[in-house]
């Protein structure tokens, strides 16, 4: 494990050393932003809207004490969404979608000698292939998390209204109660850290794939597993440090 971590650090260093021209990297970053960000909007929207809806309904189900105002449901949906569900669940979903795509793509390039072709040309393959993916992920994850926050809260609103668990007025009142702007910043910091972990770990696993198609599949699976574990550990660490 220590050896793997050392190799991971060397891999990150090799990416930053002897970078390609900015113009080349910029075009690659824009392409990756589309793949990582735009192509993930649908799944993030579906997941976050339903998580908001389910959270609202389940809190309402558990909140039986008549002394607690119903607006608490809106408050709890907001707090859970902003602090935990939007950044963490969105990043775990993206670890599955984006992480496996990065590891699979790079693994396939490795076993079909496309990475070797770049290296023979004198191009720093890590810098050309991986750096744009990491930068694009660190740029797009926060945007997707903001989208997830909004849709999750809207999902809770619709679910509460449609099931009659809470009135629209009470829900909005709860959403507005004791709002702490720092929580948004905290969520965005988390999303940037998670983006780095998912993209870097997946790239590392894919970039050093050896063998054939079976190993590419295995690399994708390992990339997703390791990314999710890294997200959960980092989630705890950031909460302990920043809150």
């Amino acid at each position: 494990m220590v050896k793997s971590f050392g190799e991971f650090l060397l891999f990150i260093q090799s990416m930053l050393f002897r970078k390609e021209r900015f113009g080349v990297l910029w075009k690659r970053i824009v392409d990756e932003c589309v793949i990582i960000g735009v192509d993930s909007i649908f799944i993030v929207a579906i997941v976050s809207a339903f998580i908001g809806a389910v959270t609202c309904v389940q809190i309402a189900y558990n909140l039986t004490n008549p002394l607690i105002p119903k607006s608490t449901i809106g408050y709890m949906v907001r707090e859970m969404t902003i602090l935990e569900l939007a950044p963490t669940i969105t990043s775990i979903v993206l670890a599955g979608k984006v992480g496996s795509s990065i590891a699979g793509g790079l693994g396939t390039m490795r076993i079909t000698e496309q990475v070797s072709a770049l290296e023979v040309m004198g191009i720093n393959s890590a810098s050309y292939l991986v750096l744009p993916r990491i930068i694009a992920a660190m740029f797009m994850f926060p945007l997707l998390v903001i989208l997830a926050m909004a849709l999750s809260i809207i999902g809770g609103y619709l679910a509460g209204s449609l099931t009659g668990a809470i009135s629209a007025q009470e829900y909005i009142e709860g959403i507005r109660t004791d709002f702490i702007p720092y929580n948004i910043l905290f969520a965005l910091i988390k999303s940037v850290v998670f983006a780095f972990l998912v993209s870097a770990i997946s790239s590392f696993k894919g970039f050093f794939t050896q063998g054939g198609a079976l190993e590419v599949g295995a690399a994708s699976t390992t990339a997703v597993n390791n990314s999710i574990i890294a997200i959960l550990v980092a989630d705890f660490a950031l909460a302990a440090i920043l809150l």
Partner: protein
Amino acid sequence: MIEVHNVQKSFDGNQVLKGINCTFETGKCNLLLGGSGTGKSVLLQCIVGLMKPDIGSITFDGTVFTNNKVDIKQDIRRKIGMLFQGSALFDSMTVYENVEFPLKMLTSDMSKEERRDRVEFCLKRVGLENAGAKMPSEISGGMKKRVGIARAIAPNCTYLFCDEPNSGLDPLTSIKIDELIHEITHEYNITTVVVTHDMNSVIEIGDHIIFLYKGLKLWDGNKDEILNAQVPELKEFIFSSSLVRAAKKVDDETEGGLAAATTDEAINI
């Protein structure tokens, strides 16, 4: 000219290259010949810098490549073109973009029009002038090899390396690819190194042949000398092919050297 001095390489205690010394001459098709697992591809990867030899050095036209400064290695690498066994075309790019790629990445002084002219020239040179818009998944194995060659020569390479260019191709397409590599080598006076175990390639394009056996260089010479070589391992290797046995028979009868015993004549027997 590429010179290999005492190159050794081991993997987990298994010595794959046991001190190879050889020279690849400019303007010639230099063939690295040998059976599977003899170290041909490992030697090629050491030469192009994809692997680092444990011991030994490699020089390109007098400039040491192994263990040299990164800038110098980069300068040499940018003179290298390589055709990979599986062609290694970038599957997210069209044929045109694949050939243009090294020009975009390696040359900053070329205008878009100059790049376009060069790509069109290279595609025409390999007979694929109408395939530019196709994706690699839409073309045949032989066409992929041609695109690989076009991509390798696009930046005016000085050294061309081909890793088993005939693998997976039918005999006729193999001969065409061999001829193309041979023509390009002589046309641009480049140093070409071809890794192969195909005796047809030896007969077609073997200007200079190096035979490897169990990590050692056992013989070197040209295609006219190889059939009369007195190395048992080489004889066993080349005469395992019935086609070569037939060619040898014609060679003995005509006394005109291997050049007189063409593949066509051998096939007719």
